[in-house]
């Protein structure tokens, strides 16, 4: 079939736009995540700034065609800087009726719907629970939108007729038709995707050829079908000059660990147990065996952290990765690690809780657990990453602090930034801060005595690698005497050691950068104080508010324990402080308790990130 020969007269209008939000939406098995990621990669390679938001159900294959089974991938791309995945969509690709039903409420007025016709047959409409006889594509409910009904399933079948592939395989490639069509719509090339398909199916050339054929068919369809009259052009973004790549938060965390291992010269050991949404870090690190990375898939969350403690005792850069429920299981061992004063990095990729909660949805509800979730008093440094690429720097920093201050460090990420992606002007090897490792080489006490808890001026004890000659020593969970590490039940000693351990963590304040204003000025009336993945939404909201004349500023925290030294002074300068969080007010509690200021909280606990509009509305209300 060659449509272009049949329709030689088609005229296409080209419109320049600044930014667009596209939502790919379909069944869990429709391949929307892959389609979205490929589209994003192509947009990024073309120089657009991008932010993505994969939004999928926790079931691997929820009942086909139902609302519960809808898997969405949202990409916001543009020629200006993009900090969020977008509040609402310009374009929805709806592979079935359920997808449209779920995502319709957030389509902008006048937005474009590309609907897969066969996904709106009687069966699919019933599965999506539309009332009998109602089809949104055929009644007037979509008259304020531009609707393109495309029989993607049929067109894909026709394209692959005679390919020798089975119906199942043919049906599976329909997402490539969608991708081809969208790439045409936004004036992107197919090269990147063709390369991707060839690499992915290098051992199955017939599948590769079929997918490429369907991809091209989708592209050609856009070019030639009369219904598509407009193409959108988005110029490359004016980002700071440099070399960029696209990165997700989990991958950034993984390579942050590898980088810290390389720069410190310490072998990397990851003890981990699979848990959504943290598992990709385990997957990614398992690929770096060639760099000597050891990944240990432990029998449970407890063994995961315990094996890491063991590895740390032998002088490895030891890490464990998890999400909320796993974090709870690790808390006893975290107490041990705090007591032993061994370096350890714990990455908690937060999700909706408590219990199994919303495993694939995002939340910032583990902050207080990270701060206080241990038996006894065991303060630990807590850092939070603010964007996908920031996971790299935050994890790298965490490794540096853990090793240089002999302490476990907790890193908080969350489902939104872990799976979301953005372009990243990545650093070079030589740009990365050095990580100082000082293993004890010889006895540090008199007469060859080993003093495992003899502290330096920062109260840091020496790291003694098991296996070092003449430095045999025992450490343990029982309270110990300073210097010698000998077990001590002496009353005053326990108080002294409790204070020493806390003070050691507190002194890290002198090694972290001061808090700084991200946007606005120090004399503004209102401060929006954020932490973690709310960065993009707050940044955009504050920026837009300032442009509209509101007196507002933004500070975003990476270091939550200890807090930056200057934070109090900065906070006291603002009349009002607003703290938006995807929890019921956890940083709010910490800030109020620490600085005794009447900060105002703004909660969202829906498993979804804040929209810019939600935060902006609060800013306006408080201004």
């Amino acid at each position, binding site marked *: 079939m060659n449509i272009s020969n049949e329709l030689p007269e088609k005229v296409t209008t080209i419109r320049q736009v600044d930014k667009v939000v596209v939502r790919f939406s379909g069944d869990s098995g429709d391949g929307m995540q892959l389609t979205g990621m490929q589209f994003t*990669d192509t947009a*990024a*390679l073309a*120089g657009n700034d991008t932010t993505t938001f994969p939004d999928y159900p926790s079931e691997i294959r929820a009942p086909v065609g139902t609302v519960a089974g809808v898997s969405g991938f949202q990409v916001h791309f543009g020629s200006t800087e993009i900090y969020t995945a977008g509040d609402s969509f310009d374009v929805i690709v709806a592979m079935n009726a359920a997808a449209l039903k779920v995502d319709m409420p957030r389509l902008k007025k006048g937005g474009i719907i590309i609907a897969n016709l066969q996904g709106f047959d009687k069966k699919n409409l019933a599965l999506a629970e539309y009332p009998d006889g109602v089809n949104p594509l055929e009644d007037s409910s979509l008259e304020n939108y531009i609707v393109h009904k495309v029989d993607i399933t049929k067109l894909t079948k026709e394209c692959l007729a005679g390919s020798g592939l089975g119906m199942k395989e043919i049906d599976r490639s329909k997402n490539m038709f969608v991708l081809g069509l969208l790439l045409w719509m936004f004036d992107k090339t197919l090269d990147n995707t063709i390369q991707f398909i060839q690499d992915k199916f290098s051992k199955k050339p017939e599948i590769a050829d079929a997918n490429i054929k369907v991809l091209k068919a989708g592209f050609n369809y856009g070019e030639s079908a009369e219904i598509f009259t407009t193409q959108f052009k988005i110029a*490359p*973004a004016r980002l700071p*000059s*440099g*070399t*960029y*790549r*696209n*990165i997700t938060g989990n991958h950034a965390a993984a*390579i942050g660990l*590898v*980088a810290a291992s*390389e720069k410190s010269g310490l*072998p990397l*050991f990851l*003890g981990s147990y699979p848990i959504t949404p943290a598992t990709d870090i385990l997957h990614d690190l398992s690929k*770096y*065996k*060639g*760099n*000597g990375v*050891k990944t*240990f898939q*432990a*029998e*449970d969350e*407890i*063994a995961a952290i*315990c*094996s890491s*403690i*063991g*590895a740390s*005792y*032998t002088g*490895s850069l*030891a890490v464990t990765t998890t999400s909320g429920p796993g974090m709870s299981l690790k808390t*006893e*061992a975290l*107490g041990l690690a705090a007591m*032993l004063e061994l370096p350890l990095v714990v990455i908690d990729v937060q999700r909706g809780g408590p219990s199994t909660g919303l495993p694939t949805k995002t939340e910032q509800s583990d902050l207080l657990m990270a701060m206080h979730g241990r038996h006894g008093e065991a303060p630990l440094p807590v850092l939070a990453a603010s964007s996908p690429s920031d996971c790299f720097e935050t994890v790298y920093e965490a490794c540096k602090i853990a090793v240089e201050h002999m302490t476990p460090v907790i890193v908080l990420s969350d489902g939104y930034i872990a799976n979301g992606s953005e372009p990243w002007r*990545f650093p*070079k*090897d030589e740009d990365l801060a050095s990580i100082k490792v000082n293993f004890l080489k010889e006895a540090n006490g008199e007469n060859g005595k080993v003093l495992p808890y003899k502290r330096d001026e920062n109260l840091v004890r020496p790291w003694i690698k*098991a*296996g*070092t000659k*003449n430095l*045999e*020593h*025992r*450490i*343990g*969970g029982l309270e110990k005497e300073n210097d010698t590490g*000998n*077990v001590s039940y002496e009353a005053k000693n326990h108080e002294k050691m409790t204070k020493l351990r806390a003070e050691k963590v507190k002194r890290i304040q002198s090694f972290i950068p001061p808090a700084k204003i991200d946007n606005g000025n120090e004399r503004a009336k209102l401060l929006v104080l954020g932490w973690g993945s709310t960065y993009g939404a707050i940044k955009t909201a504050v920026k837009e508010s300032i442009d509209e004349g509101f007196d507002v500023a933004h500070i975003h925290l990476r270091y939550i324990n200890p807090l930056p030294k200057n934070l109090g002074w900065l906070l006291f300068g603002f009349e009002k402080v607003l703290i938006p969080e995807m929890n019921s007010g956890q940083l709010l509690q910490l800030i109020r308790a620490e600085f005794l200021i009447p900060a105002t909280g703004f909660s969202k606990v829906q498993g979804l990130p804040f929209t810019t509009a939600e935060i902006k509305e609060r800013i306006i209300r408080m201004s």
Partner: protein
Amino acid sequence: METLSLDTNEKLNPKDFSSGMEVKWCPGCGDYSILKQVQTIFPDLGIEKEKFVFISGIGCSSRFTYYMDTYGIHSIHGRAAAIASGVKAANPDLDVWIVSGDGDAFSIGGNHFIHLMRKNFDVNYLVFNNQIYSLTKGQYSPTSERGKITKSSPYGSIEEPFNPSELALGAKASFVSRTLDREPKHMQTMLKRAHAHKGTSFVEVYQNCPVFNDGTFFPFSDKETKKEEALFLENGKPLIFGNNEDKGIRLDGLKPVVVDLNSNGFSASDLWIHDENDKTKANLISRFFDAEFNDTFPRPFGVIYAEERPVYEEDMQHQIEEIKTKKGKISLNKILSGDKTWNIL
């Protein structure tokens, strides 16, 4: 079997392994004997002192770590095996010993126990089994017998105990053995065998708790009863026991039967010959413990099962080396940039 040897001529002696810390077990505790046997055989193992690492959990047994002048972590309840896995995976050169009790290993640490056996790290796992919780002052443990009267079971325990060697075999242990505190020479042999075995070596040590469970294992060591109640296994030798070495065990199909060597016309050559490498037989031996056999069968001590199979940390290392050779190390700059980049001018 040892691959490491001392590079100096100075021979260590048992005292070199004493940390000098005051040992605080109760007088008469079986743990003293275990500490002594370990310290006695260590100089003979031919390992540099700094390579030894002891990892223990919580319980009376787990204080062991503090008394050895080696590297060690006295950790948290039940987790010694998990910590030891990390130690051995991260540094396969270390000579790792896990010290645990019946509660620590089989109850709170049960999951780590079975997975350690399955993964087969080359470590030694000593479980001091006294069939009671002692550090918490006397509650029934997962190895206490049904009906056991303790503070938490004043009317008798209603739980079926674990059979540790059967549990270990079921978890695919590659070395399963049993010894007891009152048989120092036998224990030394078992410790040496465990150390020589490449893979996870499980040594169950019957250990008397004089305070909360005194005398539980005395039938296996008291002169008057020992010969009838205990069977000391030797590889390649027939299963013979009894006061006058007049009883034997033979296999009737897959059914073990106790036979009288004097009266029934059976001689040693009719008996079951112990074969450490035979898993079917090992399973049967481990079941002498069960009610079905317990009354008439002696309790076996010695190496019940031994099998050479791949050890975790070596496979892990091999895989790394293989990938290093095949794909090489990726430069940090390449890791940072990934495969696809673009420039913005």
